[in-house]
């Protein structure tokens, strides 16, 4: 059949030294994915932002203070050993969220979700959002809603899908033309919007893709922690909470050591070892 035979592993790398925190990715995501809004969104703990930009500081005082903005979409975790049992998928009682073994994308089926919120508890990234309210658009504004992403209803969980509908559209086109999807054919809305070009998206399995070239994912389990697969062999690249074995497909990049260190939790003295290990693993494959 006209199946795309290659197994993709779509992922992203965000250059934190380029990100300006402008918020274009957040809005592009909202507008692409029919994310609703309410009158007061200043309580960030109930504000649906599939892409959320965190602000980190190095904790030093002026003028040594440094800020970094960290855009956080769903990390599309592969779970321990990258077997597809991401923290959220493995706990969902109704199979309303699923791991796409052909894409590495963690999906969410809104019409099946019954709102138990176990997945939200399981996700350490706070990437999952609950519709506490029925989404309401001011009169007439539903007119801009896109048919490619179904609007959600009250009582279900939603999250970033890596703009899966864009993949579907690109895949359909590629199938018709009997070819593989080109790198630039499938890009997420946040990637295309970023004015600083800080986000690179593509297939981590495809050495021709820029994301692969930057990340250089190690296909073997980390010898120091077998739960971890796909660790970057680029010493400037890291993942959030990598040690937990969630194996996210969103990587971050920074020249600054304190930023890389902020990506995970380390006991006293551990960072020094990890830091060097990072470099060492680049000789690994």
């Amino acid at each position: 059949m006209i199946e795309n035979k290659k197994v993709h592993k779509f992922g992203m790398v965000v250059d934190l030294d380029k990100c300006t925190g402008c918020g274009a990715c957040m809005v592009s995501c909202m507008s692409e994915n029919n994310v609703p809004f309410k009158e007061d969104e200043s309580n960030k703990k109930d504000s649906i932002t599939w892409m959320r930009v965190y602000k980190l500081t190095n904790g030093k005082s002026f003028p040594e203070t440094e800020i970094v903005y960290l855009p956080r979409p769903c990390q599309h975790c592969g779970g321990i050993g990258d077997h597809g049992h991401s923290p959220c998928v493995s706990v969902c009682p109704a199979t309303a969220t699923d791991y796409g073994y052909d894409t590495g994308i963690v999906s969410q089926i809104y019409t099946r979700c019954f709102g138990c919120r176990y997945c939200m508890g399981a996700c350490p990234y706070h990437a999952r959002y609950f519709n506490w309210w029925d989404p309401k658009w001011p009169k007439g504004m539903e007119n801009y809603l896109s048919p490619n992403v179904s609007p959600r209803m009250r009582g279900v969980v939603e999250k970033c899908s890596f703009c899966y509908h864009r993949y579907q559209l690109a895949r359909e086109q590629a199938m018709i033309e009997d070819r593989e999807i080109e790198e630039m054919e499938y890009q997420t809305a946040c990637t295309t919007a970023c004015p600083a070009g800080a986000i690179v998206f593509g297939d981590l399995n495809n050495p021709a893709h820029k994301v692969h070239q930057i990340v250089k994912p190690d296909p073997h389990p980390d010898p120091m922690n077998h739960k971890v697969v796909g660790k970057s062999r680029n010493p400037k690249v890291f993942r959030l909470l990598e040690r937990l074995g969630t194996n996210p497909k969103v990587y971050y990049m920074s020249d600054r050591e304190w930023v890389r260190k902020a990506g995970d939790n380390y006991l006293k003295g551990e960072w020094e070892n990890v830091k060097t290990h990072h470099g060492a693993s680049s000789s690994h494959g």
Partner: protein
Amino acid sequence: MKIDRRSFLGLGLGAAAGIALSPVGVKLTDDSSIWTQNWPWTPVPEDGEITYDRSVCSLCPGACGISVRKINGRPVKIEGLDDHPINNGGACLHGISGLQYLYDPARIKTPLKKNGNKFEKISWDEAISLVAQKLGEIRESDTPESLGLITGADNGSMSRLFERFMGAFGSPNTYTMPSLESNLALTAAAIHSADRSLGFDLDHSDFILSFGAAIIEGWGSPVACIQANASRRERKAKLVQVDYRLSNTANAADKIIAVKPGTEADLALGLCAVLLAKTQISTNTLYGDVNKLAFAAMLEKEYTPDKVEAITGVKAADIEALAMEFIKAKAPVAVPGKGRGDVGQSLREFAAVQALNALAGRLNKEGGVFVMWPAGYLNFPENVMDAAAEQGAGKAKLAGSVNELVDKLEKDGGLSALFIYNANPCYALNNPEKVKAAMDKVGFKVSFSSFMDETALRSDVILPASIFLERLEDVVSGAGLAKTVVGLCRPMVKPVFDTKHPGDALILLAQAMGAGIAQSFSWESYEACLEEVTEKIWDTLSDDGYVVIDDKPPVGTPATDFTFLVSAPKVAVPMGEGDYTLVPVDKMRLAGGSMTSSPFAVKTVSDTVLSGKYSVVEINPTTAGVLKDGDIAVLKTAMGTAKVKIGFNEGILPGVIGMPRGLGHAFNNPYVAGKGVNVNDLIGPVIEPGSGLDAAFGIKASLSKA
């Protein structure tokens, strides 16, 4: 049959079994499943064919190319246009959320007439004849100069059309809201020559010295600036930010020069003094300069590093080192304009920074600053001026700037009618209460607004404008860009409400007025007008969607006239009393000036900027006194008081309070208005002698626990 206990039992059991086995259960389950998966009140967007249309965003002066995705002709998404000469595929959050403006709850849906305190709906015919009649009365009373106009931008065919109307009517009283563009034009006029603008070639500079310019937070053409910053690392270009707080730009910079707020001009002059003292460039290479010697003498006397250190708080040694680093760079450029560079700016500061560029020989050089000619693609036919027009247009303007106009109106009045287009002075100028009082002195105000904003609410007649997605217009770049690109904004959708293109409204009005005015506006529509006046470039413009007029450094070195700098007296220190200096802070995610944020943009605003109904003010913990992070406090200035939330921020100079700009709107849009405080309410205008600009960068303030 006798119903005994046994048969009753049997019947009951049988019925239960029957119901369990019948399809009723399955059917109900199935129905509830379907029903609960598709709530009738959850919208189901209509599907259809996907198409893309190109246009230009005119929400801000950035003039970015946009691509509008449509489903069966229905716009669903705005994205940056790939390969566009300004934004090259990038987009900012305001542009991306552009579709929300189409259906904004505060949109004005029909022409309106003020009746007492309420607006009543009227037809376009009624509205036009009402305005024409009022204006006719003014002309009959032989005071055509008492019609005023406040506009947002002063480039492009629409501003020319409004000016044309004023000319044909017979009034010189045209005012523009302060913008980076107008401030740069003023600077060019003050130290080079009139009718020029300045463009900063950030893309090719290897050393950007920014005097507080929020290069990645909305200064100039935001997307182009963010892209220029993003490419800095590959180009090995340095950014040094002079600032009093850790803005995002300061954070992205290689180096921060912490400076007392309001002393940026002195620092720039101090750098000029170092250059003069330590290098030979100024005396040898600059030519055709006016008052250079007086300027040099002033620098030598008043702006020695030690003296500048005392004023700015920057160490003398650092000033010297910075000046040398600047001059030794291959392509340095100094950039003026604190924050977005629009409100609360001083011409002295702009001019001082430009003098630094001039002394360093960076005028009209790649990677430097371009002293640019006007875009010059518009060719309007001669205005037909009747006697009344000739007489009125010859009179002197009431005031030199919009700020002076407000002053004048508030004190003595002087206008009998006022047009407001593309401007929201009742929100965007400092001390809006005074602006409102000034507005009340004007008998008849006509607004061409799309939204019922603070200023539209105070108008007598509203001729609602279609927004950029509903209209055709030429959008010319400016705003500090070192290139001139004219883009074509095209209607992406039919007007959603009973609105008109303001150009069409103006043409209708002019024709209703008759006489010379009608003759000056003899086009059948704005579209016909645009086609005629852009004749030279119309074909390319309509085919490609944009025309690059110029993107190379202008030829030759323009003369520099230091007279203004030599004579410019310093602006008074911030008014009022208090231990702190309150300064407004521009944020990328909050629109400033006349543009209002969209619901999406407001949604992205951090809780360290807006928390519930409170604006969060930045304050260094070391000078917070008894106040704690998250406390509600009363912020008091000479202009007013406001309840704010305290947000500790290590990244701000001690003693300075940073307050976000763009909040505190008061009109009917619950997603955007009624949140936080308008910082302009707390700051009084301080008019700069010699420029008429409101140079109030801040104000003395006190804080106490609520």
